[in-house]
């Protein structure tokens, strides 16, 4: 677990009060984003997102499985994220800790609650067989803002994914069809962090460590909110939440455009 260095935290705050972010960005500015898709031969869909120095890969694997008992005619979507010790010295090997689990669940809920996926179209035979779509997010280099960037990668990978061929009732992973995943909305997660009285987006690792509180807001294409998560030990006033949501909605349309371009 990262130990927060109080002196550095103070200095980040003081600089922000004077309107300066360590890397010279504006408070509502994202780092340069690069998105690449469809480069993994073993995954049904894949995306690689680079935002500043944070780099994340997401891969989609599909399988035919039994549906859940309470939703016999619906397919299953599962989004997982592992905070690999590979990507940052502060992570340790072993089962995912609370931080890792929160990242995965916030991204998962953002996509799930957006109801972007037409689950019924994933049904093959009600009660017996449905498609499951597993999206796994693996950070390569963690310099902050894994939730937003991981979510971008997950959504881009889902958009890139094509169903594998089914032959004799079995999946042939070597051949892909042209059929995309039935997704009709693009959910975008934007995390706004509060340091002192400053609200900023796309925090670097250092800024994340200095935060008082954060709010992750996931929106759908028409600007409506579908998922919210507050984090951090500090509190937020209603006015602050108001502002943070506005900022998140504003940024989400920029990001949505980038993902659609891929």
């Amino acid at each position, binding site marked *: 677990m990262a130990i927060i260095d109080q002196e550095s935290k103070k200095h980040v705050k003081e600089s922000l009060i004077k309107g300066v972010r360590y890397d010279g960005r504006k408070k509502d500015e994202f780092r340069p984003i690069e998105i690449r898709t469809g480069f*993994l*031969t*073993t*995954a049904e869909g*894949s995306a690689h997102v680079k935002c500043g*120095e944070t*780099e994340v*890969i997401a*891969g*989609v*694997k599909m*399988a035919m499985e039994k549906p859940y008992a309470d939703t016999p005619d619906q397919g299953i979507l599962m989004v*997982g994220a*592992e905070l*690999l*010790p*590979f*990507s*940052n*010295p502060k992570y*340790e*090997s072993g*089962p995912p800790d609370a931080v890792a689990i929160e990242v995965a669940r916030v991204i998962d809920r953002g996509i799930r609650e957006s109801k972007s996926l037409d689950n019924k179209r994933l049904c093959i035979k009600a009660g017996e067989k449905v498609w499951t779509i*597993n999206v*796994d997010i*693996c950070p*390569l*280099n*963690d*310099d902050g803002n894994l939730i937003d960037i991981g979510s971008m990668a997950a959504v881009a990978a889902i958009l890139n994914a094509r169903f594998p061929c089914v032959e004799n009732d079995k*999946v042939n*992973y070597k051949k892909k069809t042209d059929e995309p995943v039935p997704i009709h909305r693009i959910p975008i997660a934007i995390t706004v962090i509060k340091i002192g009285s400053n609200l900023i987006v796309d925090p670097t690792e250092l800024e994340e460590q200095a935060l008082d509180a954060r709010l992750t807001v996931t929106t759908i294409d028409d600007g409506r909110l579908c998922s919210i998560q507050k984090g951090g030990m500090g509190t937020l006033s209603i006015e602050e939440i108001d502002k943070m949501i506005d900022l998140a909605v504003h940024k989400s349309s920029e990001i949505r455009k980038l993902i659609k371009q891929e």
Partner: protein
Amino acid sequence: MDYNKRLDGRDFDELRPMEAKAGVIKKADGSAYFRMGNTVAYAAVYGPREMFPKFMQNPKKGVLRCNYNMMPFSGAGERVRPGPGRRSKEISAVTDKALGAVVDLIDSPNAVVDVYIELPQTDAGSRCCGINAAAIALADAGIPMRDLVSAVAVGHAGNKICVDLDYQEEHLPEFLEGLDDHDVADIPVAIIPSTGEISLLQMDGIVPKEVLMKALHKAKDAAMKVNEVQRAALREKFASHIAENGNSDSDNSYNENGYSNDADATAQEDTDGI
């Protein structure tokens, strides 16, 4: 019927196309990317650093700790459940031994050098690809080592010794009809290039001893080709060093006290007992 022409058209002694890059993960102390055909591995090295849990510390020298992991979407078929399975743990252990043979951690008592190998995509030969990436990453991290380690999997399929098997060759009877029912043997080997010593050797399959010995010689030759790619990746990282010198400005041999760096380096010479 024998295996006369390889499925992807390669010569029997030919490796798949390789690609390598050093320093790809900024947060790590050393890192690398290595590709052999469609098998891709990233390696990140952290250390030497303080070792936890403390009871695992070795007061005589540093510990090397390798961790091999396949990303869930990297398998040829279904999703691979995340988390260390038995196969990953075993590969981590043999990787440890393969690299431990060259690394010298005498100057880092009680510390650990963590090597993380992650594969986003595999097509056979993954443990060798991982070792190749890890060797570059260890050098990139400035870990003292007497040489790199270069690994390749050779196989015996359809009565022929094939260098650098891919997934289809590992399962040849499924992909080639009429093949005599000879077992396919898969033999991953890791070599220390300067001495020819073998630091990793495993085998699955049925072969007569002569075949194994021939395979080992082929592996050695193939590993030298891997080694060239590894060295090139490390040199490339500092490409502009080459041929540029003589300018008094590029004089980086002074430290803050105006003493030549060499003077400080002498303090370390007596620990160079590899």
